[in-house]
C-alpha cells in the first residue's frame, strides 16, 4: 500500500504537469481552455513525427515543439480568444470547445486511430527504475516528471514576481482596464501568458507520450485530469495545482484498492467532495461577510 501511495504521488506529478498551464491561463485570462488536453496530445504527435520521421530524440524535439506551441498560444490568444472575449464571458469557453473538436478530428484525419507512444525513442528511461530505501521502486521517468513540474512552478512564480513581463501579466490578471491606464499593453501581456501556458502544454505532451500511449481522442481525459487537479488545488494557485494533482492521484489509487474499477471513480469523488466543501465554505464566508456589512 505504501508503495502504491508513493506511485500515486508521482502520478500526481503528471497530472500537475498537464494542469499547470490550464491553471495559469485561467488565473490570468479567466479562460477555461477546453482545448488544453487536445493541445497536449498535439504536442505528443509533433514529437512523435519528429522522432519517427527524422530520428530526433523527444527531449531534443522539445527544442522545436516548445517554441512552436508557445507561438500557437500567442496566436490563439491574440487572434481568436481575445476577439471572442468581446462577445462575453461564455464565448471564449465555447471557442476553445470548438477548437478541441477541430484539433481532435484533424489529428484523427492525419494520424489515424492507431495508438502511439514516445517510449520507443527514449531508451531505457521508459522502464528503468531506482530502488529507494525500503525496497520501493520508482521509475526514472516518474522522478523526472515530478522534478520538471516542480521546476516549472518555481520558475513561473519567480517570473511572475521578479520580471517586468511577469508583473505586467499579474496586473492584467487583476484589472486589465487599470493595467492599460498605467502603461501596460494588456493584450500583449495576455498573449505572452498564453504562450507560456502552451509552452508548459508542450512539456506535458512530451511526458504524456513517454509514459503512456496516446491516440487522437486522448485529449478529453487529459483535460478532465487537469481540470480536476486545478479545482482541487484551488483555482489559479500554482503550488495548489501540484497538491491538487497529488490528491487526485492518491484518491484514484485508494479507489482502485477498494474496487478494481474504482480508479477513475475515486478521483471523481474526491473532486466532487472538495468542490462541495468549497461551495459550502464559500457560502458561509459570504453570509458571514454580509452579516458584518449590515452591522
Amino acid at each position, binding site marked *: 500500500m505504501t508503495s502504491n501511495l508513493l506511485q500515486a504521488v508521482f502520478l500526481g506529478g503528471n497530472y500537475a504537469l498537464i494542469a499547470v498551464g490550464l491553471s495559469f491561463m485561467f488565473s490570468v485570462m479567466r479562460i477555461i481552455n477546453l482545448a488544453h488536453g487536445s493541445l497536449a496530445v498535439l504536442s505528443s504527435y509533433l514529437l512523435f513525427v519528429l522522432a519517427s520521421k527524422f530520428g530526433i530524440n523527444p527531449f531534443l524535439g522539445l527544442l522545436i515543439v516548445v517554441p512552436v506551441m508557445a507561438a500557437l498560444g500567442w496566436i490563439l490568444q491574440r487572434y481568436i480568444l481575445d476577439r471572442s472575449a468581446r462577445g462575453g464571458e461564455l464565448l471564449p469557453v465555447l471557442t476553445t470547445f470548438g477548437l478541441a473538436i477541430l484539433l481532435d478530428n484533424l489529428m484523427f484525419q492525419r494520424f489515424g486511430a492507431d495508438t502511439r507512444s514516445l517510449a520507443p525513442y527514449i531508451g531505457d528511461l521508459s522502464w528503468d527504475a531506482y530502488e529507494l530505501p525500503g525496497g520501493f521502486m520508482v521509475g526514472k521517468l516518474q522522478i523526472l516528471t515530478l522534478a520538471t513540474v516542480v521546476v516549472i512552478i518555481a520558475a513561473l512564480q519567480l517570473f511572475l514576481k521578479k520580471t*517586468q513581463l511577469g*508583473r*505586467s501579466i*499579474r*496586473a492584467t490578471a*487583476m*484589472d486589465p*482596464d*487599470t*493595467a*492599460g*491606464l*498605467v*502603461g*501596460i*499593453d*494588456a493584450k500583449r501581456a495576455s498573449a505572452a501568458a498564453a504562450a507560456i501556458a502552451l509552452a508548459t502544454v508542450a512539456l506535458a505532451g512530451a511526458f504524456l507520450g513517454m509514459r503512456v500511449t496516446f491516440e487522437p481522442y486522448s485529449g478529453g481525459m487529459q483535460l478532465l485530469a487537469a481540470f480536476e487537479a486545478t479545482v482541487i488545488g484551488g483555482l489559479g494557485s500554482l503550488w495548489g495545482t501540484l497538491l491538487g494533482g497529488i490528491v487526485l492521484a492518491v484518491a484514484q489509487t485508494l479507489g482502485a484498492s477498494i474496487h478494481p474499477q474504482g480508479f477513475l471513480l475515486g478521483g471523481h469523488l474526491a473532486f466532487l467532495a472538495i468542490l462541495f466543501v468549497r461551495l459550502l465554505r464559500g457560502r458561509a464566508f459570504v453570509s458571514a461577510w454580509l452579516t458584518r456589512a449590515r452591522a
Partner: protein
Amino acid sequence: MTHLTLENLDVRHGQLRAVKHVSISIAKSEILALVGANGAGKSTLLRAIAGAHRPASGRIMVSGTDITPLQSFQRVAAGISLVPEGRKLFQDMSVEENLIVGGISARKGGWTVAKIFEAFPNLVKRRHAKTGTLSGGEQQATAIGRALMSNPEILLLDEISLGLSPAAVDLVYASLEIAKAGTTLVLVEQDLSRAMNFATRIVCMLEGQFVLDAQTQDVTREQITEAYFGNRGRGH
C-alpha cells in the same frame, strides 16, 4: 503654449452622451480644476483623455499631435497619466510593486521609486505591505505615486480627496505641490474651496458640457455655484 487640446469631443456610454461636443485648450503647467455635479461627465472626460474610453467623435491633441487613435497604454508613453477614481491599486501587490508597475512604460524623467518615497514619506514604512491593507490616504498616495512613475507631462487626477479625512487630504495636496512642477494638471474635485485654492483655472461641467471656464482669480464662489446647478441663465 497649448499643451492639451480637445476638439468637439463626444463620449458615449451606449446611448447616453456623457460628454457632448466639448472643446478646450489647456496651456502648459496650467492647473485646471474640473467641477460639477455627479453625472456631469467629469470622470468620463478624464477617462477619454487617458484612453480608457473611445470618444464617439472629436479629437484629442497633445502639443499639436493627434493622440485620438492611441490606446490607453500608448498614451502613457505619450505623456498622459491618470490617477483613477477609487484609486484602482493592484491589491495583491505591495506598494513598491505598484510603483514599479507604474514605471513599465515610463518616459525619460526624474521619478524613481526612491523619489516617490521621498515625496510621500508616509509610504516608506508600508513599502512591502499589500495595498489592500493601507489606509485611504496611503492608498491615494500610492495611486498618485504610481501615476508619477511614468514621468507624465499631463497628470489627470480623478476625485483624489474622495473618502479621505481632511488631514489625509491636506497631505495629498501637499505632495501634489511637488508633482506640479512643469506638469500640466487636470483634476476633478468635489471640494470647491480646495479646487479654488489649488487650481489656476476652473471649468464647470453640467450635463456633459462646459458651462463656465475662468481663471480662478476672476471668478467668485457664487458664480461657480450657479453654473454648478445650471442657474446660469437666471442671473443674466
